């Protein structure tokens, strides 16, 4: 059995709010409207709401699951406890790969945006090098540094990027929202299914749970973070519905960035470049948290110090970015990661919970028998 984390490495429960929110909102918010509006048109906002509620349920489930973990441990000790060293280890390794993949996808898709909008002539490796060196700096500082990065990754974009989107209401066509419920429930649920991927990110909680002081009390903060995420997605969705029409949005790759073309101030005419630059602060915490989570699994499983595994993982990510250049390849990668993430969080976690729950029941029943 592993020891509980030393108290000086712990963080306050309310910081979960920033970590969960920072990891949920990523590159997806720039372009999630397209598939949703294709499926559900002006009713797409309902799908956003539905998926948000589903995420609430999954967060609740995750807290219930982690409560079973021995001595406030993480998912790795949970796996070990219920599946034994070997099979549990295999499951945890799978999770390690998933976290690494998540970091890689976010990095890759942000690099793509920079390349398309700002620096078309630069190679991907230059950005990924800068990014990964920064990640090394942050993650080697430990979880508390990662958490504080998440804090700024929430606050700064919220006060700078978010208000910019409201400028586009100058061109609002409110009738685009009508008629409400013009799509079948099946279409809306299918759109909600697409939307669910945008809420991913809170599954990192499975790893940093032991780092929370008085962890169960942090649940309300995780829910609050998810509520804020839902609110932001909902606002962006509403603005996009009244700003674009259904056909037009099909021709826009990143509708949210194109929205940011509308505000104009005398000294900067094109705000979307500012948005893209500030977006580093949105993307960076996700990469840092997932890289941290991956190295943490490596430490728990193989007793490799994070300082050792970190450079290896970052090198792998760096080499990976050299191979993905084409837009279609990156898109396929994103879809694939989304599928994996979806099955981890919406299929694997509930199944695991059911298994752990029945195992505990059976154990109790056996103990009560004389």
């Amino acid at each position: 059995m592993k020891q509980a984390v030393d108290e000086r490495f712990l963080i306050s429960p309310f910081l979960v709010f920033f970590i969960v929110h920072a990891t949920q909102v990523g590159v997806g918010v720039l372009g999630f409207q397209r598939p949703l509006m294709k499926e559900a048109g002006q009713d797409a906002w309902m799908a956003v709401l539905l998926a948000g509620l589903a995420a609430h349920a999954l967060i609740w489930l995750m807290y219930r699951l982690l409560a079973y973990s021995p001595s406030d441990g993480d998912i790795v000790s949970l796996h070990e406890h219920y599946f034994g060293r070997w099979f549990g280890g295999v499951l945890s390794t799978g999770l390690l790969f998933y976290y690494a993949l998540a970091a890689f996808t976010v990095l890759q898709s942000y690099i793509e945006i920079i390349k398309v909008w700002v620096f078309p002539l630069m190679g991907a490796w230059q950005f990924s090098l800068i990014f990964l060196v920064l990640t090394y700096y942050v993650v080697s500082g430990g979880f508390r540094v990662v958490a504080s990065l998440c804090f700024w990754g929430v606050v700064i974009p919220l006060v700078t990027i978010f208000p910019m989107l409201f400028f586009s209401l100058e061109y609002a066509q409110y009738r685009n929202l009508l008629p409400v419920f013009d799509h079948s429930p099946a279409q809306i649920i299918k759109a909600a299914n697409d939307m669910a991927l945008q809420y991913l990110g809170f599954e990192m909680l499975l790893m940093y749970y032991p780092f929370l002081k008085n962890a169960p009390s942090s649940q309300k903060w995780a829910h609050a973070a998810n509520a804020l995420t839902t609110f932001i997605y909902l606002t962006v969705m509403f603005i996009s519905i009244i700003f674009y029409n259904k056909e037009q949005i099909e021709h826009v790759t990143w509708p949210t960035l194109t929205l940011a073309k509308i505000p104009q101030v005398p000294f900067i005419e094109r705000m979307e470049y500012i948005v893209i630059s500030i977006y580093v602060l949105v993307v960076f915490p996700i990469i840092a948290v997932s890289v941290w989570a991956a190295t943490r699994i490596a430490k728990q499983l193989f007793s490799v110090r994070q300082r050792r595994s970190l450079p290896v993982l970052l090198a792998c990510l760096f080499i990976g970015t050299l191979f993905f250049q084409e837009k279609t390849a990156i898109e396929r990668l994103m879809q694939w990661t989304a599928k994996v993430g979806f099955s981890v969080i919406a299929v694997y976690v509930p199944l695991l919970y059911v298994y752990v729950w029945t195992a505990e029941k059976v154990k109790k029943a056996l103990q009560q028998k004389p």
Partner: protein
Amino acid sequence: MRRGLLWLGALLLLGGCASSRPIDEIQIIQQMGYDFEDNHYVGTAVYPTFKQGSMTKPNMLTTSSPTVYDLIPRLSSKSALPIEEGQLRLILFGKQFAERGIEQITHSLARNNKVGSHLFLGVAEGSAKELLEITAKTTLSDTLYLPNLVKQNEQSMNLPKTNLHLFLYRYFSPGSDPFLPYFEKKGEFVKLEGVALFRDGRYVGRVSLRDSFLMKILLGETKNGVYQLKVGERGKQGEDRVMLQNLWAKPTYRWKRDGNRHTLDVSVHIHASVKDYPSWLDEPGANLFADVKKKMEKELEQNMRRLFRYFQEKRIDPLGIGDFVRSVTRQWDRESFYREYPDLDIRPRVTVDIIHTGIGE
């Protein structure tokens, strides 16, 4: 020491990555013209050259090519400095070019991350090149003459709002068609002459600047615009007109089923100020304005009906009536709506409130 060297190395390595473009080493295009002449596309770019202080002089580059996409690279071959299109403010299409369709250009603009959404588009009678030449010649330091002309007229006069975003919005919308400002050459001047109408990206007709006032109101833009109305038969020329200035207007559309046909009721409420009116209306005591109001309403209704009929004949929908009907119909069917559209019964009803007549009586 080791850390310092590391930083120095990083700085040296990364410093080489910068690709800077200082402002005086690029050619900033501000206006662009597209024409189609003798089976060739002609592209015209207007760029400012900076002289002393704030003095700028518009300069032009022209080139022709058998294809559209080739124009900017070909312009480059005539320019000493690299061409940047990030500051484009206006793209002018010659009428012939617009009749052949401007989809190619607008699609490429929609994909171009460098141009802004506030870019104006416009149609020139005759050739765009000629118009741009005139503005370059007649304006001394204002290189943005045409874009400012459009902006001014949208903000305070009859022209409905247009820009790249709105053009694309209406172009892609299943329930509306785009329109653009229309310019004409008048002697040595360029004059805004109304609104050019498009069907599927092709120029099909235009309405006058006077009628664009009605378009502006019917599109739901609440403020600005002037409209001259004939209210009587007496007096000399010009003695029976009033000038109506729109202070606030609101259209309300209502979609009704009438047997197996549909009707569209359009009621427009205008708050107007009338400052210019003939002297016989000033007769003290007699309340002649009530009568004039009725006449104004009737004439506005008649003109709206004429405008609707023109759009129906041309089978275009710049007012977005289809989009309105979509918003009140479940499972709106575009095909069947536009099949019905040419003989749709559209009934405009106008109410004018004369808020004031200036500070004199």
